[in-house]
């Protein structure tokens, strides 16, 4: 298995954990394996949580953190492995079982009824009632005493839709406390908070631990884990890399465990020869969709020249998706400007952007990239069906489309059961992606925006697409690549921009940096204040 670490420190700590007495472990998840068709999301993962500890779960996107927590919370049933609580095997087949065992969870996306008050949300499902009548005052007294005890300030009568994200989170926490939960799971709790709110939350979490509650803290932010956690379990690609004592490791070591560094898919490429400016982004801001009044992208400025690959690195959810939506026209920017080959396209339609030479390999191939129920041929001309080549007098020129599609299939080696006639839904993911790549590379363009172009593909296809992208660059196109895979970033980029919290926090030269440094920028524990100005230069 590539990616296994020779880290002596891990063995040491696992050893210590096993010596640890069983009576200390409140939760033991032993050898959990959860498979989905085509993928093992959790592969023989063992995770133990001691009473009164703050245990962090660290891993990249897709490492299996959420799956593991869903197993613990009863949302998924694992194929193998068992869960023990206080040494007793327990069966958690749905969230009600988890609640009955005192396990509570604050989800990344809050599960609150928007038009209910804070108090109503807290008691939802466990309403104190007498003869069918709600005893709201009894509930209010309990909620308010909990609120005071832990310093969780709330307004019990405010409606969820009217209160801040921070207070919504406190409502979620009170929900767990109201149910007397002893094991509290926090799924990426700081993702939506301001720095002050994060500090407060850390204090509150510590006070829970001091009281003997056990905390499971899911995050990919190293500095938070360093600040608050006692131990940390690292997952990578569905496997458990190890459990370490946070005090005994450095952020660099954690980062290395999380990312893993053995697969090196080197792409052959010569030095870039950047030409003129193709894409010019100035002070671009994009409003957040999920949190009103916040911005997902904050005053981002950068340029992409012809003949270079600029890569935006960063952990998923730091504004990359929103940035690309604004660049490609799927969403509107709230401020700033976008220039393409000297034309202002800030408010231009998608069709106009396409005409001006923007190609876009979208992040979600099923949602945006393809009409799955169309034939492969019809998908190959998704942006071009109206061009004179394929249309005459309002009628589609099927023969021409077929001819063109056959040509692309041959050129880009797209495999399918029935060639141009194949319904795209019946094709494999890799070939669907190849079809998109073929379409976007083959149409006339000066800028290629590629978002996670190799997501979910096998090694061969990844290599192929990487080579295509380099060829694009050498042909004089500007390439903007967004990737959550550090490998890909290091391999392909001529310049790396790191995004964190909706901002570009650093610009790096792949020749003069290493994965560890990029990882630190990605995790937000390092930032270049001059990055913005450098990126603009």
């Amino acid at each position, binding site marked *: 298995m590539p990616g296994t670490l020779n880290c002596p420190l891990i063995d040491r700590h696992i050893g210590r954990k096993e010596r640890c007495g069983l009576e200390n472990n409140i939760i033991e998840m032993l050898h959990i394996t959860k498979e989905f068709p085509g993928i093992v999301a959790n592969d023989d993962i063992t995770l133990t949580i001691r009473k009164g500890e703050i245990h962090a779960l660290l891993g990249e996107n897709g490492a299996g953190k959420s799956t593991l927590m869903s197993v613990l919370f009863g949302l998924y049933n694992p194929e193998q492995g068992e869960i023990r609580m206080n040494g007793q095997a327990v069966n958690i087949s749905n969230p009600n079982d988890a609640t009955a065992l005192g396990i509570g969870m604050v989800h990344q996306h809050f599960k609150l009824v928007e038009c209910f008050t804070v108090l109503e949300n807290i008691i939802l499902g466990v309403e104190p009632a007498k003869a069918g009548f709600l005893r709201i005052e009894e509930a209010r007294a309990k909620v308010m005493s909990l609120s005071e005890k832990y310093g969780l300030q709330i307004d019990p009568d405010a409606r969820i839709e009217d209160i801040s994200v921070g207070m919504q989170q406190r409502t979620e926490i009170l929900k767990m406390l109201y149910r007397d939960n002893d094991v509290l799971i926090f799924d990426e709790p700081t993702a939506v908070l301001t720095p002050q709110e994060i500090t407060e939350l850390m204090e509150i979490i510590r006070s829970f631990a001091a009281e003997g509650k056990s905390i499971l803290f899911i995050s990919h932010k190293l500095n938070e884990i360093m600040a608050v956690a006692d131990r940390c379990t690292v997952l990578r690609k*569905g496997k458990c890399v190890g459990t370490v004592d946070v005090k005994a490791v450095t952020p660099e070591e954690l980062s290395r465990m999380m990312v893993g560094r053995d697969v090196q898919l080197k792409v052959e490429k010569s030095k870039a020869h950047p030409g003129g400016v193709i894409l010019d982004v100035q002070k671009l801001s994009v409003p957040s969709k999920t949190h009103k009044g916040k911005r997902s992208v904050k005053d981002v400025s950068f340029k992409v020249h012809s003949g270079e690959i600029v890569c935006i690195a960063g952990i998923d959810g730091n504004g990359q998706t929103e940035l690309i939506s604004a660049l490609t026209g799927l969403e509107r920017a709230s401020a700033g400007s976008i220039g393409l080959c000297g034309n202002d396209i800030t408010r231009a339609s*998608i069709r106009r952007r396409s005409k001006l030479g923007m190609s876009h390999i979208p992040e979600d191939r099923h949602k945006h990239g393809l*009409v799955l*129920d*169309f034939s492969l041929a019809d998908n190959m001309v998704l942006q071009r069906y109206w061009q004179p080549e394929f249309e005459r007098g*309002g009628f*589609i020129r099927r023969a021409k489309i077929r001819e063109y599609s056959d040509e692309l299939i041959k050129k880009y080696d797209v495999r399918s059961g029935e060639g141009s006639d194949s319904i795209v839904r019946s094709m*494999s993911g*890799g070939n669907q992606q190849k079809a998109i790549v073929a379409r976007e590379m083959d149409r006339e363009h000066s800028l290629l925006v590629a978002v996670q172009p190799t997501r979910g593909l*096998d090694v061969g296809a990844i290599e192929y697409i990487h080579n295509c992208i380099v060829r694009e660059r050498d042909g004089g196109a500007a390439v903007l690549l967004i990737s959550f895979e550090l490998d890909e970033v290091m391999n392909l980029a001529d310049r790396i921009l790191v995004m964190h919290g909706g901002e570009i926090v650093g610009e790096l030269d792949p020749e003069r940096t290493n994965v560890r440094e990029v990882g630190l920028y990605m995790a937000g524990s390092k930032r270049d204040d001059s990055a913005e100005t450098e990126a603009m230069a």
Partner: protein
Amino acid sequence: MNSNDRGVKKLLLGILPSLAAIAIGLIFGFIVMLAAAPANALSGFGTVLTRGFTRMADVLFYATPIIMTGLSVGFAYRMGLFNIGASGQYTMGMFCAMYAAFMLPMPRPINWIVCCLAAIAGGALWGAIPGIFKALLNINEVITSIMFNYIGMYIVDELVRNNAVMYVAVKARTNYIPENVQLPSIGGGGSSLNIGTIIAIVLAVLLFIVLFKTTFGYELRATGFNKFAAKYAGMNSRRNIILTMIIAGALAGLGGALYILSPSSIQGASMTYEPINVIAEEGFNGIAVALLGCSHPIGIVFSAIFVSFIQRGGTAAVAYKPEIIDVMIAFIIYFSAFAMFVRELVLGKRRRKRAGNAKPEGNITADEIDAPMIELDIDKEE
């Protein structure tokens, strides 16, 4: 496998669920007939299945308006819009045709053509309004078009009652459409067969061409299958939504004209309108017809003729109320939805199997697995 074989296979796969649904629906209908009046069940069922053959002209006469409303619903559905407002558009079109017939004296054959054009305009207007609301303000077309059914019907009834030329108060209905404005009859001798049926079938063929041979049809189907991909590809969804609803409305509106202007010898049918504050059932039958015809223009022609066929049989079945046919049609619609579901299940299984075999290629990452949760979030956003 050559493309001809493939075409046949595709066609079979397309119509089999509908045929199966019809068979099962008829069986259930027969069971209901048995329960209602056992002695007459067999002969009654026979009448339902055969009587239509002896009255083909009437079958086509009644099929014409529901071909039109079926095309209206089916066409909009291809775009992903549920046009439940076909009744209102139909009524609006019928009124416009009537108004032109009574109030604008013109020589034949210009007069009936003008009546049809007026109906198209009225229906198109009634389709356009929900379309505009949907396109510009993202207001659900189902809700607006349901409301426009009522608004249209009440407006029409009011206008009819207040028009002394059209309305005969003592009979609580309009005058008969003047003979020289009626649609040209074919077959002659008081036959119910008229040019309306031919117009409807020609329009179905035309719609087929629009849907599958033009760039507009390409955009429309792309949007219906995946509106996100259509947006990504730079298609103008606002324009397309409004245009689709205008066309759907025009089709239903013309359906109203083809019904009211049709000459027939059937007692109590056609050439007159009763303003009795009831929503036209042709609109809802259009939904059933479109569903049974898989929203395919040619399929809709056949399913409309079939529905009309068993309705004719139903009115003739001894010892049963004609509503027995509504029960049968309800069963058929229910099972056609069910059959499509089963077909999806079978196809889905085969697809998954294929995906499983192609495992080395389809190496999905774990975050794709969380799809159900992600979908939930998307739902919330919308």
